[in-house]
């Protein structure tokens, strides 16, 4: 009897889970489907579920706004800002986790609090600084700004992972003659690889999707994929099929990255768990 009830509950939960997953996934699915429709089909009412499978939108999008250049900018900005952030955050998180001072907790909270401020509040000063420094519409300027924006999260995540590492092992390295950078490179970083990998991935995704600064500080040369999508929303009216094709192209790389590194991450995490 009890078994029958639990089976029923199981079916109920499975249906609910599928329903929620499809509900959340539906906009993405619809975007992908629409990208393969003609413009007329895309605005047809009632909408068609299965498109006529045309690739014309993709060719037009590439011809009109050079997808690969934007893609290249997105890669430079997201990967570059992440690597730069790690370079700064690893030593910072080391000192906070292993050599904390009286106010370390306060500094961590203060860093996080900067994420609570609306970005638009500092748009004007940063815009002016960028203009005077000649960094407007420049991928390196954008890389630096995205690094600064995500730095608090990177420091926090690494700090949390580093706290898990027994300080004895780092002290052993010091006794074995390791100076600071060797201690970090040979002992701390290899032990924190699963944590660093997940931080890296999350930060690349955040930087890839960041729209506020990428839209406001770029025009053409340095524009990443966010600006590429935005350019398809124009006052002359929306071209749904082309906009969908552009969106699909913009999210595809990060979706693939997430899909493949998810497996890597799970392996990394279970490795840590059975250690």
């Amino acid at each position: 009897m009890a078994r029958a009830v639990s089976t029923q509950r199981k079916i109920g939960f499975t249906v609910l889970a599928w329903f929620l997953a499809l509900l959340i996934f539906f906009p993405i699915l619809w975007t992908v489907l629409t990208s393969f429709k003609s413009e007329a089909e895309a605005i047809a009412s009632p909408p068609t579920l299965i498109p006529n499978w045309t690739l014309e939108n993709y060719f037009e999008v590439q011809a009109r706004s050079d997808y690969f250049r934007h893609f290249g900018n997105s890669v430079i900005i997201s990967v570059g800002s992440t690597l730069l952030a790690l370079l700064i955050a690893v030593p910072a998180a080391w000192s906070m986790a292993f050599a904390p001072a009286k106010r370390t907790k306060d500094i961590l909270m203060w860093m996080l609090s900067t994420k609570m401020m609306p970005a638009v509040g500092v748009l004007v000063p940063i815009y002016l600084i960028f203009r005077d420094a000649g960094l407007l519409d420049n991928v390196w300027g954008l890389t630096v700004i995205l690094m600064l924006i995500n730095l608090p999260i990177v420091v926090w995540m690494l700090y949390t992972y580093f706290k898990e590492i027994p300080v004895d092992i780092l002290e052993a390295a010091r006794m074995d003659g390791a100076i600071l950078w060797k201690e970090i490179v040979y002992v701390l970083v290899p032990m924190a690889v699963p944590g660093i990998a997940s931080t890296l991935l999350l930060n690349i995704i955040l930087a890839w999707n960041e729209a506020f600064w990428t839209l406001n500080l770029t025009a053409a040369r340095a524009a990443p994929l966010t600006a590429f999508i935005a350019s398809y929303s124009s006052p002359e009216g929306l071209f749904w099929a082309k906009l969908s094709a552009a969106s699909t192209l913009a999210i595809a790389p990060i979706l693939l990255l997430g899909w493949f590194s998810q497996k890597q991450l799970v392996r990394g995490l279970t490795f840590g768990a059975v250690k």
Partner: protein
Amino acid sequence: MGSITLDHVNKTFGGHQVIPDISLSIEDGEFVVFVGPSGCGKSTLLRLIAGLEDTTSGTIRLDGVDMTDSPPAKRQLSMVFQSYALYPHMSVYDNIAFPLKMASMDKATADAKVRDAARILNLTDYLDRKPRQLSGGQRQRVAIGRAIVRQPKAFLFDEPLSNLDAALRVNMRLEITELHQQLQTTMIYVTHDQVEAMTMADRIVVLNAGRVEQFGSPLELYRHPANRFVAGFIGSPKMNFIEGPEAAKHDAYAIGVRPEHFSMSRTEGTWKGKVGVAEHLGSDTFLHVQVEGLGLLTVRAPGEHTFEHGDDIYLTPEPDRIYRFDRDGQAIP
């Protein structure tokens, strides 16, 4: 060479004085044990010598050179941690080779040294394994291998055996003592276990609340404890302390008699009592005797004795083995 001198070393943690003021001189090649109850500052003292903690004031000299402000990496000391602190991502070989890699030693020389250390410690068959694939005793050996491989000025051991089971502990105790005989390098060994201290040390530092209560050879501490704390801490089972009129007869505030310094009789003696619990160890038996007016005394009897629970017993302390203490706990010579 590896002499270590502490001169008025003082350590304060956030207003709390852990080490008030310690001066010590450890000779080259000596095996010195820091012993004391938990929280007495023995590990802190070791970490000050290692350079893992900064001194608040005072100087630490290695071979006469002031090293007070040098980082651990520059002190040429090796340390074995209670938790072993092996590098989990490296093989046994790489763990032992790590100090040599840090010293930028060439590969061939380093290889010879690692294999030599592994041979001494019976680790040759395990060089390719990761630390998590080893037993506790093997891990401890790897930690020791990592310490001996680069011939440091001194070895520092921080309660290295407390995570091992009792049988293995006795084994490793012998191995470490044997290692000291072979290498003749200065060793400082921290433990809360007075048996480890007595069996391994050339000289023992007894610490209590950050102060050095006494510094001397094991037998010196056993025969001539400087105060009641040392008298009670060294020796197992503990020394019996008696206060009041019985002590006053010896012109002391308190007297102490070790369990092994009593003679027993059924008919006559100084103190009369009743036998309580008997702990049989085979070779010896520890009798807990309730003595009228004095309380519970522990007495060491031969393994095969005839006293039963509830029997009357007369105890007589050996007259030249009665320790006398004043009101402050200091020994009266």
